[in-house]
């Protein structure tokens, strides 16, 4: 996309019927680190790649709890995402207050989309530079939506946004047909594998990703690092049986040395050939 005379403000149409500012906002989403979502009949899993700027700084928060039954993962301008999360939380609280019942996900995403649309039609505003993967549960089941800076929203079985999300999407496209009937554990495993795809070669550790789950009887919550690392370890060893282009089992054994938690380090190094069923 090159600069042109129709891209200065959001209220200018191009002759081809495009709003360049809105499209540039969507570019911002593509620049952010990856966020992935998948859903089954009863659960929704959100995952994201958390890259800290340096060893010294903390990770940016990219997954937010909106209510007990809704959570959101963002990609793009995280500040915009934070502000929108606050809006979503407020809407949920107000709806609960008035109707003593949780806000249906579909309603929330429409409100969010309308809010985004306003910013595409005011000369003194700019579009939100963040894509949101909204995952939640309501009376009609589990839902995953993607809200875009343009004000559009779509429901998905599984989706990925942000940089190198195409790799994750390719994996999800292969597997999505089974998701509806997946168990909670299978869904989380698929989310982790999809996250690993977006890391493209880099080792998947619990320190670079965040996983969150919401399901029937399970309020939205972010899994802690230890749990995530255990889940990663469970399938990383299984991965050795998969076709080439994977690191050798020997390399896998060495890798635990620089992995997250000490406890797992011990288990993985001790018996690499034995599936860690006792974790």
């Amino acid at each position, binding site marked *: 996309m090159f600069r042109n005379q129709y891209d200065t403000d959001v209220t200018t149409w191009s002759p081809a019927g495009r709003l360049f500012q809105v499209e540039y906002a969507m570019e911002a989403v593509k620049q952010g680190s990856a966020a992935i979502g998948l859903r089954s009949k009863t659960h929704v899993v959100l995952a994201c790649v958390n890259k800290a700027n340096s060893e010294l700084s903390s990770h940016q928060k990219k997954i937010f*709890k909106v209510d007990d039954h809704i959570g959101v993962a963002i990609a793009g301008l995280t500040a915009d995402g934070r502000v929108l999360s*606050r809006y979503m*939380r*407020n809407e949920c*609280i*107000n709806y*609960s*207050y008035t109707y003593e019942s949780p806000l249906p996900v579909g309603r929330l995403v429409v409100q969010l989309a309308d809010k985004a649309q306003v910013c595409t039609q005011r000369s003194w505003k700019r579009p939100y530079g963040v894509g949101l993967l909204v995952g939640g549960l309501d009376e009609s089941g589990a839902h995953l939506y993607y809200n875009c800076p343009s004000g559009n929203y779509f429901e998905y079985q599984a989706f990925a946004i942000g940089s190198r999300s195409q790799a994750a999407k390719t994996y999800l496209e292969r597997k999505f047909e089974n998701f509806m009937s997946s168990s909670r554990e299978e869904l989380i495993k698929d989310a982790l594998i999809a996250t690993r795809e977006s890391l493209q070669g880099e080792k998947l550790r619990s320190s670079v990703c965040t996983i969150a789950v919401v399901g029937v009887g399970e309020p939205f919550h972010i899994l802690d690092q230890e749990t995530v690392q255990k889940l990663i370890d469970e399938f990383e060893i299984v991965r050795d049986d998969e076709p080439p282009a994977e690191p050798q089992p020997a390399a896998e054994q060495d890798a635990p040395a620089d992995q997250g938690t000490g406890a797992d380090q011990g288990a993985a190094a001790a018996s690499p050939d034995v599936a860690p069923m006792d974790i």
Partner: protein
Amino acid sequence: MTKQHANWSPYDNNGGSCVAIAGADYCVIAADTRMSTGYNILTREYSKISQLAEKCVMASSGFQADVKALQKVLSARHLIYQHQHNKQMSCPAMAQLLSNTLYYKRFFPYYSFNVLGGLDNEGKGCVFTYDAVGSYERVGYSSQGSGSTLITPFLDNQLKSPSPLLYPPVDAVTPLAEAEAVELVKTVFASATERDIYTGDKVEIVILNASGIHREYMDLRKD
């Protein structure tokens, strides 16, 4: 020609009594379950107690519609706090919030007489007592509602610390054990039920301590 007065009041009094006692590492909060209007009983099984946060419980008597509205507002505010601070509100923090919320409606008050009980940041029991517009104070024990005039003197007799002017000095701290405090609450409600027509049916007793929250009920006279 005297000024005409309203022949309709936005308020009603649903009666009932509330009590709270703070211990060294526990807090007991209790309220009867009778809801009345005038000389009639609306229901014998209405809870006046609401858990606002993990370590904070409120009992309120007065106009239950206002009490319910107040509980909802505090609940919503607590959710916002949790989102912003990633933790539960402490009892003293909730106490201040309740005071501010009540004063916010200084010129159309919540007709709600509250007693807040819980554990403070150090794990010690704390009780805060309020008037309808938010004036509050931390105390060792308190009672509100229609039976408070009967209950408070009895609690003073049992729990109030002796004067520091006494000689020989009398030990001010007579820590009540949790079981003793619960027994005291049951006695107090049984007595109040005898003479206060708005108190009776059942008493709901909530005990907050380090191991969490525990609820029990005791039957009272139903007349």
